[in-house]
């Protein structure tokens, strides 16, 4: 926008110089400042907002229109956006209402699911980094554990559920275990790669300083491998969020997964669509949170 406002002035300046008969020394022509200079600092923000937010909004609106048209017939098996709005307005408008023991807002259900994810993912982050450090540091640990990890990581999350139900005899710890076992593999593998890639120079420094293993872990290993670890954590949180919904469908309770299953059983398709939107947005936010933490935590770890 500022470029548009300034362009005519630039043309005038260069035109004047061309028109002069004698070779005038090049003059610095002061450009007129935009009048609303007090708010000028907002302009770049506004422009970036416009270029980043507007396109997805347009796509979203177009998608909703197509969807509305496609599902507008009364015989349609899926609800149109307008029908979802009329059916599930309470769910959309107020995420935190409580109208009864099983009739609560989706925000509260998501929080219950998030609590499980927090516990399961937190445990897998700690265990994953420690195991990854072991596998990355010790050749024998890698030879012994890596093939087993490579096989176990291909087991789909839900395949663990019956075993964990049998072991824990309770839905909640079983769901947490499924989160744990789903998220841990990318954390282990990425951490191990990060540890293996610690430059020999840093190891030499640690050796000259005689850092003990615990000091080496905290002062060298973790900071040096941090970019890899956070890649693993980011994949892990995404997988946890994928697994929690499926696990909750089977274990029941208050979470968002069970809500979908419950809505399906009582043919509330509109509620399911709203729940899907919630899950997607929360998953997106989780990913961004881990990415942001990683960005802050790995500041300055790039060797120069």
């Amino acid at each position, binding site marked *: 926008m500022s470029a548009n406002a300034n362009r005519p002035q630039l043309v005038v300046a260069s035109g004047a110089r061309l028109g002069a008969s004698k070779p005038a020394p090049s003059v610095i022509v002061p450009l007129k400042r935009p009048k609303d200079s007090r708010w000028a600092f907002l302009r770049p923000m506004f422009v970036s907002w416009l270029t980043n937010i507007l396109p997805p909004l347009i796509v979203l609106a177009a998608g909703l229109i197509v969807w509305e048209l496609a599902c507008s017939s009364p015989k349609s098996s899926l609800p149109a956006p307008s029908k979802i709005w009329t059916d599930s307005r309470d769910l959309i408008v107020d995420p935190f209402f409580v109208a009864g023991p099983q009739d609560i807002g989706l925000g509260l259900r998501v929080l219950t699911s998030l609590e499980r994810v927090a516990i399961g993912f937190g445990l897998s982050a700690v265990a994953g980094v420690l195991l990854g450090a072991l596998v990355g540091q010790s050749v024998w640990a890698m030879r012994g554990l890596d093939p087993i990890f490579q096989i176990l990581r291909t087991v789909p999350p839900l395949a663990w559920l019956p075993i964990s139900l049998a072991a824990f005899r309770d839905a909640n710890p079983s769901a947490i275990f499924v989160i744990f076992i789903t998220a841990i593999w990318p954390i282990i593998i990425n951490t191990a790669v990060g540890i293996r890639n610690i430059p020999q120079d840093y190891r030499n*420094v640690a050796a000259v300083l005689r850092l003990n293993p615990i000091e080496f872990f905290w002062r060298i290993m973790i900071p040096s491998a941090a970019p890899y670890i956070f890649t693993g954590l980011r994949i892990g949180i995404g997988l946890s969020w994928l697994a929690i919904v499926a696990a909750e469908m089977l274990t029941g309770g208050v979470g968002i997964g069970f809500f979908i299953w419950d809505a399906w059983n009582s043919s509330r398709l509109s509620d399911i669509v709203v729940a899907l939107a919630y899950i997607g947005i929360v998953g997106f936010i989780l990913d961004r949170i881990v990415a942001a933490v990683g960005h802050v935590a790995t500041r*300055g770890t790039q060797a120069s």
Partner: protein
Amino acid sequence: MIAPVEPRSHTLEMPFAAGRSFLKVDRISKSFSRGSATTEVLREVSLGIEKGEFVSIIGHSGCGKSTLLNLVAGLTQVSHGAILLEDHEVNAPGPERAVVFQNHSLLPWLTVYENVALAVDKVFGSRKPRAERRAWVMHNLELVQMAHAKDKRPAEISGGMKQRVGIARALSMEPKVLLLDEPFGALDALTRAHLQDSVMQIHARLGNTVIMITHDVDEAVLLSDRIVMMTNGPAATIGEILDVQLPRPRRRLELVAHPIYLAMREAVLKFLYERHAQPALLAAE
């Protein structure tokens, strides 16, 4: 693996009283084996270094001079022979043999201050109170004229500055021997000259015992009390040891035309390019 430390006359060694040097490299050999192939990098290297001496090791690349430094540092183990520092065998790395690495090896996630503090806290953590350690870190940064950048990260300072911080980190450990592994190799000529002057001043002030790996003839003559010249590998050994009898303090400009300086320079150059020219160079002729 402790070799007997009996007085032993070696043509290449300086004569030492009863063979007891401050740092004694006693007939060490080093072989690396990869699979079935074994390469002998160093053979029968013996060298004695006195306290406060500045010794340079010079040789063509691949002559095992860095291996020799890593052996003294304890980062690699000798195959035969022994290295003794004040009559104690060296078999592991430690802060009493601090290393300044060629590529500075500062930890990029720590600031300049924190990089030095890591070493100081580790070495003096139990002996000095916190305030004293802090002062000691700053003292060492001032010694290399880097106190002004104490809160910068390594990525934010120039190559020469990083190397200064690397030197400060090594000095801060109060090492018995300071090991410099081609410390100025990656720097431009002007920065290198500045750092050489700094190292000379620090050596004059603190009287450290220094071993420096270099491939720069002028640098070796300017800084050293003795220059150890290595033959070509494999199975490299010490070819000759040159005493640099230039008076200290040495000034770069005064030395340029100094007859001893020129003679030393010529001696090293002749050794490197006449008698022990790199095989590749000979083949090219």
